[in-house]
């Protein structure tokens, strides 16, 4: 496996996928970390109409900063972990539908393997934004490794 795409955005399932990729790291292996910010964040103003534009802008700015802080945290963690291995690494952050972004990334570059975590078990904390969808199973032409969730 020379060219691995790791799809991770810091959930428990994604951390398991990161661990699996770290096991595969060896000289000559290149790991590309794909982090997708789900596009539903664009709709988080919902049907608010009472606030004035300054309040809405303040909220948008705050949310952007929050997402940026979280994203940078995930990127830093993955970068630090990969830097301790002998593999090369690259990082890509995109905004969109997670499954669509994954298939797009695979169409743009030739990966040998895609590694991702399992969907989180029901009732556990987290956003509803799955990457492992029917769209992925139908469209993805690269071998896919789905790492079991640590909670089973």
């Amino acid at each position, binding site marked *: 496996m020379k060219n691995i795409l790791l799809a991770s955005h810091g959930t428990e399932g994604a951390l398991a996928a990161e661990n699996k990729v770290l096991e595969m790291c060896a000289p000559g292996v290149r790991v590309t970390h794909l982090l997708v910010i*789900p*596009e*539903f*964040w664009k*709709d*988080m*103003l*919902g*049907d*608010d*109409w*009472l*606030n*004035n534009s*300054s*309040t*809405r802008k*303040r*909220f948008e700015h*705050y*949310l952007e900063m*929050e*997402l940026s802080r*979280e994203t940078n945290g995930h990127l830093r963690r993955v970068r630090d972990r990969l830097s301790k291995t002998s593999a090369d690494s690259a990082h890509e952050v995109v905004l969109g539908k997670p499954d669509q972004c994954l298939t797009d990334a695979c169409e743009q570059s030739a990966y040998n393997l895609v590694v991702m975590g399992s969907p989180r078990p029901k009732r556990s*904390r*987290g*956003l*509803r*934004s799955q990457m492992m969808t029917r769209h992925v199973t139908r469209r993805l032409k690269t071998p896919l490794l789905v790492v079991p969730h640590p909670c089973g």
Partner: protein
Amino acid sequence: MIYTRKSPALLMMGLIMLGIWYLFESGLLSGYIGHLGGAKYKYTGEIATVPLYFGIFSVAVGIWQWQAKPREGHLDYYLSTVAGAMFILLIAMLVRWFLAPEIAVASQALGKIGNTGKHLHTILGLNYVVLGILTGIIIVNVFKIPGWAENGVRLSRLGLKTGVILLGTLYSAAELKNLGGLSIVMIGFFVLGSVGLVLWIGTRMKIPSSMGGVLSAGMGVCGVSATVAAAPVVQAKSVEIAYTIGTILLWGVGCMFVFPIVGHLLDMSHVQFGAWAGTGILNSAQVAGAALAYQPDGIETLKVAEIFNITRVLVLPIIVLWLAVWYVKREEVAAAQQVNVARVTFEKFPIFVLGFILLFALSTTGVFAPANHYKGKYFGNTTESGFKQENLLSHEQTAQLAEESSKIQRQDRQQALQRLIDHGKVMSIEDDDVLRGLINAKVLSKEANKTLKKAHKSVRHTAKKIKAFRDWITWLFAFGLVGLGMQITVSAMRQAGGQPAIIGGIVGAIKAGLSLVVVMLFISETV
């Protein structure tokens, strides 16, 4: 940056509007209008004018958008919103004039439901408002908002705010005083109650302070709007924001459908339903939606509900300040931050409420209708004030009233009736009120009561400007709500979950149930 998208869409929408107008004017729609209700069909006046004016406007701007090369600047920015605004308007037209009446025809064909005495579409509130919002939700979730319409769809907020401002013309001072007092008591109790309850349950469930803060604002005050205002103040995490907004949107949309059904089943008055929706529905957009869903062809319910909405939004800066102080005290990490009271108050103050107050103040001066108007109607028994001499009671009618006057016990009623008999018309607004009481008491015969009702109607006049405002308000709310429907995505609602969903479910259900009980027990049918 150039905002205008080069597209023939606006031109095509303009041509569709003109097509509707032409089909109607040429009589080609007559058969279909007959199917939708014939003489009972209420929208012929609108179809004869609205699509013509907006069609011409859309075609003119549409040709420019499609063919001209826009230059960077204010004109480009403002004209880029036209396509989206006309997109919403076209949907509102189609739903109001054709889809909703079609559903009503189908529902009437099914007959009345059980012993409710109402048709299915009335009970379910399937009118142009609900169908318009639903259409908006379907468009954004199934087809996505086209790029050329995105800028204009945001204008729906402006539509709703303008609607509320114009609503200020329709209140009499007495109405506003009574409704304002009622809303302060109800909102004060339920807002503070639900904010406190969320914080209390949150502490028991050991949720983070930031989550408790943002959730309490959303559940207590005005839904998504309060969440948006409070999230930065209590430093909510992104997942907490997603959970809260998802929960509130899901609850709000659910309530918008459930509340009118319950209201119809309980046969609530407009005041009762408006007060209940204004208190029990979490999200402010759905308060307006539910009020119009309950009474699609009048705005009495909307007037009550919007006073409650305004009270809620006026409470918002206070709650945000409270949460800011609460959060700073609770979280050591934020202790270094100072709560800037002036900035929070200024930023969160809803400026459009000033417009509402201004128009209300203007209406009390008699600019739009005589200052003593009540619900847009005013008293006038002289030719100058609109009384028609042919409406004077006939000799036979006054004779019958004189004959039956002995049945009346109360002196004020006897005196008011005597003045009516002497002059052939109601002599004062006080007499009019007394005589209406006499009609409701059903002391006199049916024929005599009919005469009294005629006398009452002939001295009550609708101000033309007020009628125009009513029409504008209806369209602005329809426009705004269809547009807001286009901003409710399933992906956002799907984020409902976690502890906020549990706490939200508990507090939302308590708020809706308890406010229903309070409204049914303590609020009379009129104000």
